[in-house]
């Protein structure tokens, strides 16, 4: 320490000086024949420096105390209002973020629940419609067969090609002709009625959509238009100008439903596509196989018996 050994400027090693060091500094004397400085002047000068340094150090100590006092006060104020140490502040921030995350999670979960309910409801109705259609189809068919049978029975039995012994209609006979004519007559009637009801449904759909659009314009679009299938307006419905070819993405041969129109550009329309609001696979017209032994193939909506576009292997 400086206090034990007299300070020598020549031997100074860069340690910080104290005012005592300056006051007590010993300068080595010059060798004879060379000019030195006045020792008294040096001493006086050093005293002056030491005084100023003392002042500066005192000032620093006071300032440090002041900083400490202020810092304590600031922390004290924070502690009084929040009652929290820094560690706890971190825990609180974590809790705030946790709450925000939880809220976001709930919104997403609610939206998913809502869409799940909607979809499940749609599935149920889909099943119901299919079941009804199957029942109706078999009633129509029974009716057609009964009418056809009655017509065949009316054919005079005098002709040698009448009913065969077991009551069925032998092929190529007049009775068969009468049977087929009556059968197709009944089927045509039903088909016409069915088409009428289909076009009525489409009109209703369009009306609902327009109402939906109108209400969406006036009110907040919270739930969108009450359109039947997907609630989205279907741009594919807009009549295209006759001479302007429609853009490729809307030009698919089965682009009649909102499901189709809602999908993005660049679709490969060569693939089988969703068509209408009712079924996922084309118009819901049952396939009739004509003829006395005709069957309504009710089981195969949706099963693609054609060749799938994708190869396997």
């Amino acid at each position, binding site marked *: 320490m400086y206090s034990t050994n007299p300070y020598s400027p020549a031997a100074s090693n860069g340690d910080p000086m104290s005012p005592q060091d300056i006051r007590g500094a010993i300068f080595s004397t010059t060798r004879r024949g060379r000019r030195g400085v006045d020792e008294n002047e040096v001493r006086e000068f050093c005293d002056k420096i030491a005084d100023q340094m003392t002042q500066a150090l005192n000032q620093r100590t006071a300032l440090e105390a002041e900083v400490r006092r202020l810092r304590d006060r600031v922390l004290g104020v924070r502690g009084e209002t929040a009652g929290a140490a820094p560690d706890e502040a971190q825990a609180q921030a974590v809790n705030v973020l946790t709450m925000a995350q939880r809220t976001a999670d709930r919104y997403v979960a609610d939206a998913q629940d809502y869409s799940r309910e909607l979809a499940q409801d749609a599935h149920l109705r889909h099943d119901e419609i299919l079941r009804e259609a199957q029942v109706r189809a078999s009633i129509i068919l029974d009716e057609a067969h009964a009418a056809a049978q009655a017509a065949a029975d009316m054919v005079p039995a005098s002709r040698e090609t009448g009913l065969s012994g077991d009551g069925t209609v032998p092929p190529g006979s007049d009775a068969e002709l009468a049977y087929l004519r009556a059968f197709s007559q009944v089927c045509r009637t039903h088909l016409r009625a069915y088409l009428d009801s289909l076009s009525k449904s489409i009109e209703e759909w369009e009306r609902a959509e327009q109402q939906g659009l109108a209400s969406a314009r006036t009110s907040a679009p919270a739930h969108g238009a009450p359109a039947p299938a997907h609630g989205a307006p279907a741009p594919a419905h807009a009549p295209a100008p006759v001479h302007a070819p429609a853009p490729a993405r809307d030009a698919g041969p089965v682009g009649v439903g909102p499901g189709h129109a809602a999908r993005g550009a660049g679709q490969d329309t060569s693939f089988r596509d969703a068509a209408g609001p009712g079924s996922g696979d084309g118009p819901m017209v049952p396939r009739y196989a004509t003829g006395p032994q005709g069957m309504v193939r009710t*089981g195969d909506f949706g099963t693609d018996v054609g060749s799938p576009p994708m190869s396997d292997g």
Partner: protein
Amino acid sequence: LDPQRLRESFAHVAAHGDEVALFFYSHLFLNHPELRDMFPISMAVQRDRLLSALGHIVAEAADTERLVPFLQGLGRDHRKFGTIAAHYPAVGDSLLSTLAYFSGDAWTPDLAQEWTQAYELIAEVMSNAAGEAEQDEQPAWWDAVVIGQERRTMDITVLKVSPTRPLPFVPGQSVAVECRMRPRLWRYYSPANAPREDGTIDFHIRLIDGGAVSPALARLAGVGTRLRLGSPVGTLTLDTTSPRDVLLAAGGTGLAPLKAIAAHAAALPNPPRVHLVFGARRAADLYDLAAVEKLAARWPWLTVTAVTSHDPGFDGEQGSVADAAARFLLRDPRMITHYDAYICGSPDMAAATAGRLEQVGLPREQVFTEDFGGSGE
């Protein structure tokens, strides 16, 4: 390390349930906001995963033979999320703080030390495995593009995708799929084919009502949609060393991995006899029956039974897949033990079918199943 002590400590913390993972992620994101973007908006599924992974690690802490491969797989797998070595200490800090917070008075410097060491070990194994995968130039993920989209039913779509780099997999495995429409949400799907010359892959997507990802894949994805695929995982693959014949039991889109297994068999010099039972609720839901029947016409060793559970009008078999599979085995009771059975479908269907096959006499070790049916939603 003291596995018993870690287990007890974790059990104490895990008793707080969802709170634990909530705290963990909030802590992590507060200290490293840049990491938030690596996660989806809704964190509910993520939290379950974190807790179950931690639980798994702690439960297996004593069994390094099993734990190390699990951690290595986890480390490699995390590359597809964009995880890098620098993330591990950040996660460690938040994990330790979380454990401390929920341990309360039980948290001693001693226990902290124990957990710190355990985490450092875990992080080391994971990041080493990731680093090795990096050095072997295994991709963290594969970019792919949809080149074919076919809606087979109201809620089943078949996507044909083409990865930009070859994606090697074993038929029956699955890969995680992420699509642009639902970023940071990955769902597992099985390729429905064996690896092809042109590298293309078919995915059978079933739309799950209210699901986050499957509706987007089933309805929004079209030709040109870009996907990311993770590395193949899973063990439901054909045992090519088995001398036995093969029974495949598929429920719905559970068909995908089993169709791939059939294609795998086709590539063998001596294919086993393979019988596929393909079941659905209604005939309309047998979305790929035409294709598998075509395969059966081409491969004489493959036979197919279609079965519906809710379609009295269907002219195939009636009942559950379990029913049809058991009927198939019982048609020749002496031959039951000569089969390996592979099952894929909903968890309920898989459990019911496995149970039924064991019940009719198929040894348990010849029944293979995997309990993710390709969704996780």
